[in-house]
């Protein structure tokens, strides 16, 4: 009887150790809107796709064998950019997800993202060990849709604002989870409010980040830095 109890406890502890690594990609802007701006964005449609592939290759060795890799991507941005360029980008993105062994989940609204974080898995067993965001942002908002549906702006359903963070469940996250925003300015205000509600630090940039070199984004200026 005692032996069975130990085996059950061991099995449970193994289950709890399985974690989830989540990458979130926002969508690109439309060239129709951006080409008139001095500092235009997203000449290349796949900034927030290629950077995730590169990042996943960078960190995959730190995963446990049972860990889950999930890639949440804002679908509407890639559909409309594809229509603009007369190319269907969705199959390319699906192939990229296969290449990095990630489970691809499209989302269309911020609520779908929040729901996945809170209850996309059995969060009593599978905790989020990593959450990294790739996309447009300012210091108060992740903008999954920026200059795509609306010129120079975005619809409210396509962004995760500071005010939305209270809807995230802190119990979804492992206490040692690595959270990072690769968007611009997140370290200036977003990271602080993230910690207040999620109880896990988020690394964010003070200043802008640069995706134009390909691969994992870098800080755009030497004086910029990471902050949490």
């Amino acid at each position, binding site marked *: 009887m005692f032996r069975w109890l130990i085996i059950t406890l061991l099995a449970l502890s193994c289950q709890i150790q399985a974690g989830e690594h989540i990458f979130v990609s926002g969508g690109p802007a439309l060239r129709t809107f951006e080409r008139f*701006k001095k500092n235009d964005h997203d000449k290349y449609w796949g900034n927030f796709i290629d950077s995730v592939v590169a990042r996943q290759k960078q960190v995959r060795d730190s995963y446990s064998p049972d860990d889950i890799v999930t890639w949440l991507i804002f679908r509407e941005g890639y559909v409309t950019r594809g229509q603009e360029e007369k190319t269907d980008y969705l199959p390319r993105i699906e192939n990229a997800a296969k290449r990095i062994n990630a489970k691809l989940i499209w989302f269309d609204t911020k609520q779908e993202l929040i729901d996945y974080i809170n209850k996309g898995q059995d969060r009593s067993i599978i905790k989020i060990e990593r959450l990294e965001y790739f996309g447009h942002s300012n210091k108060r908002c992740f903008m999954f849709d920026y200059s795509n549906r*609306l010129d*120079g702006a975005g619809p*409210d359903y396509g962004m995760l604002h500071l005010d939305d963070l209270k809807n995230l469940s802190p119990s979804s996250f492992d206490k040692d989870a690595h959270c990072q925003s690769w968007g611009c300015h997140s370290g200036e205000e977003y990271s602080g409010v993230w910690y207040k509600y999620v109880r896990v630090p988020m690394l964010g940039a003070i200043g802008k980040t640069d995706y134009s070199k390909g691969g994992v984004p870098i800080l755009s200026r030497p004086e910029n830095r990471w902050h949490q």
Partner: protein
Amino acid sequence: MKHVYSFILLGLCLLSGLIHAQDTAPTTVQENPAAPVESTPAPTASPDIAPTLEPEPVMTVPAEPEPGTAQPEASAISPESEPAAYPTTKIVPKETKPKTPRVIPKTYGDTTGPVYIGHRSIIDRYAGWGWIRAEKDGWRKAKWVMLDEKTGNVKAPGRFLGHPDNDKDNQYRLYGQWAPFKGYEPNFDVLVSVFQIKGFELIGPGEIPKMSPPRSSRGRSNSDGPYQRRAGVSR
């Protein structure tokens, strides 16, 4: 005597060879692809050069004549002086129509349903299209709006002018509806109304409403901001 005949025969052969060479010469000249795309007109044919060797008919016609400019060199050589096999269709410049000026159509799209009055306005480092009010209301009840150009596939009127900002201070009768979602203004951290345009009628230039768009009580959110209408603008 035999030698005399042989010389005559030889002479005839040489002569026929020369004539053949004259016939084929223009073709070889035309193989030079660089000549027709010369950007500057070449000098006209010199009279002491044999017509069989001259590439001048190509060069006398500028490759890209500007509309309305005179082309005296083209008329200096008459069509009769050109060889019969000359490929005139290749060197005649394209008929370039003068560009029609870009204008905003007086009426565009679906112009049925409730009427709104829109004033195109540009505020530096503030996203949006301008002010919109119901036809019966005054400007005091106007809202700062973003245009949703996707739903009805009707673009903002200014895009007809090439640059969306070129219709500043124009007023329009707008047709469409308020979107069920708001637009996030990323520089001032506020949500503003979104108008889904389906058609418009041009009214013309109008006086700008003396109003300010909404701003966040928490202050600006852009730092440098993802949206910049002008580069290098200090915060």
